[in-house]
């Protein structure tokens, strides 16, 4: 299969004027063997459509041009890959030290949803022949993308299509179905967030990927090209929220909570074993603080106290009585 894709890229790079679909299917290796001069060639055409998507995803700029005098005629549409848009500009070079950093950046994605992308990016880097200096030794950084929604949402983002999903907002009785125009995916405080325009209200919203339930469905129609720096502004916004929310907590000295919470970014240690902590989301912080059990007592804000108490009560409720075996459970 890569033979056919390789031949397609070579043929389209070599042509100035472009090739029509019929010319491609009848002459390019991998297609021509299966081309029927008098037939419909629908299977082959579908194959070509998929191949086009595949090579575009790799960053190969596949261009279509109308034949003069026949605008909009699909059959006379010509395909080509313009060299200047295909080739890495000659002035882009990387020093060995820079290459070492890029290797480490790619390594951070080793098992995430972007692992293939980062591996391909490294192949392209090595293509320009830079020698890699010693790797930055002694690190194994990892960016996790454990949320199942990350893959489909990053797809939606790069294809610029809408995404639909059920979203369970804390406090809501049930998940609600949303259709959004994705703008950015950002990780803040170890959590992935989606910045998107909620189509129902035509306004920007920030969604936590961990609150998406069920499958993410992608739309078909392309959205207008985006130009904003949504990722940077989404992170700034989350930072502002983080800055504005402060929780006051009392900790037992010498415990895990005391040691770890006092060393958080922005944590301030107060007299009486109290710690002031910034946070972005009261429910996420409540989850975490409930986990510390008796090592912490939340003093404020009241909503956070309530949220932690609710979680502790839920833990007792869930485990207070013997387990009733669910129907159909055979052992």
């Amino acid at each position, binding site marked *: 299969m890569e033979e056919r894709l*390789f031949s397609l890229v070579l043929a389209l790079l070599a042509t100035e004027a472009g090739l029509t679909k019929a010319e491609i299917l009848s002459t390019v290796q991998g297609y021509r063997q299966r081309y029927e001069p008098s037939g419909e060639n629908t299977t082959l055409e579908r194959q070509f459509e998929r191949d086009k998507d595949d090579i575009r995803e790799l960053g190969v700029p596949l261009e279509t041009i109308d034949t003069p005098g026949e605008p909009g005629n699909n059959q006379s549409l010509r395909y080509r890959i313009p060299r200047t848009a295909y080739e890495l500009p000659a002035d882009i070079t990387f020093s060995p030290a820079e290459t070492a*950093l890029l290797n480490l950046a790619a390594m951070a994605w080793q098992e995430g949803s972007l692992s293939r992308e980062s591996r391909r990016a490294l192949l392209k880097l090595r293509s*320009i022949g830079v020698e890699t200096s010693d790797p930055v*030794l002694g690190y194994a950084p990892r960016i996790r993308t454990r949320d199942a929604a990350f893959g489909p949402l*990053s797809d939606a983002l790069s294809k610029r299509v809408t995404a639909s999903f059920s979203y369970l907002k804390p406090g809501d009785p049930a998940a609600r179905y949303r259709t959004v125009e994705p703008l950015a995916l950002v990780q803040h405080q170890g959590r992935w967030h989606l910045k998107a325009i909620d189509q129902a209200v035509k306004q920007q919203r920030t969604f936590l990927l961990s609150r998406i339930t069920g499958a993410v469905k992608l739309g078909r129609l392309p959205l207008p090209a985006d130009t904003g720096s949504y990722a940077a502004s989404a992170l700034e916004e989350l930072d502002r929220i983080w800055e504005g929310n402060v929780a006051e907590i009392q900790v037992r*000295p010498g415990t895990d909570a005391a040691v770890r919470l006092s060393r958080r970014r922005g944590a301030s240690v107060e007299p009486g074993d109290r710690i002031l902590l910034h946070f972005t989301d009261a429910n996420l912080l409540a989850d975490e603080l409930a986990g510390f059990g008796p090592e912490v007592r939340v003093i404020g804000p009241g909503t956070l106290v309530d949220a932690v108490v609710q979680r502790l009560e839920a833990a007792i409720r869930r485990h207070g009585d013997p*387990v009733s075996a669910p129907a159909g459970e055979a052992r």
Partner: protein
Amino acid sequence: MAAEATPFTYAQDKLTFLLALVPYLLDIGRVSVTDAAAHFQVTEKQIRDAVSLIAVSGVPGETTQYQHGDLFDISWDDFDERDEIVITHKVALDDSPRFSAREAAALIAGLQYLQSLPENVDGGVYSSLMDKLARGASERPSQVAVARSETTGSLAEVRDAVARGRRLEFDYLSSRGSQERRLVDPLRIDSDDENWYLRAWDRVRGAVRTFRLDRMTGLRVTDEPVDAHGELPIGDSLFQGGDDDLVVTLELDATALSMLGEFVASVDPRRLDAGPDAPAGSSGRVRVRIRVAHLHGLKRLVTSLSWTVTVIEPAEARAAVVDWAEEALARYRQPLDTVQDAGGNTAGPGLA
């Protein structure tokens, strides 16, 4: 980077390799299969297969018949007899391809993440690199970003010890709640999103152990050099199972599985409570078995996920969760001023 030597699974990745390899070969003129494999961090077989394919590839040409001059050619003598690659005729391809929007975005987000490392790298180096990646992409990089992760102050000292190969000494609060002075040979710093860990040879236990950086206090970089440990298998998993691990069965919403992270050992695919009215998709309850070293870690995990997780068995795990939550709730029943540390561990690193 052992994972990189694995062969490509997808045609897209194989194609990228071909498009990357040709300009490299043209530029270098002559290279051995061994050196090319080392450069691209692939196997020699992958190089030979790719070169064999390139040598019979080309463009349809004027005749549309893939005549000899329309194809790449290599010096077959060099290739067959000396295992060296020389391209003697090229078509269509000259230069390296641009990055795709997502490829550039992945590296840019990776660099953002790395900015929190205490390396002596000027911030300007990062921004110039990100700018080059963006300019080298065929489209605007996708909007993916990672906030600079939080690092505790000790990261710089730990990094220094790793780089200079010096032993480290620190007080470590285990998740069991016990505090001990540890003496270790540091091996590698791992991170998992915003959490930082030291993988080290524990000199007392004679084994590789993982330490959370935010649980270390009283850190001291000693002057003693570390022992040579050769190629110690550190492994990618932060949590190594032991023989005395406890196997615990949990029940939770399928959508919350990702919250268990590395704890999940096996997932029972059976959905529970998924009646006829249950919506399609992964919204049912599932049971999973996880391995934990002891109940201290488990009760914390379960209590933090009490909106969805129920421990099914063993019974002592259920009891541990109840005790933990009860004790915590009891604190809220006391007036604030009298909340004191009852069983006080005063030897610990108390807060100033």
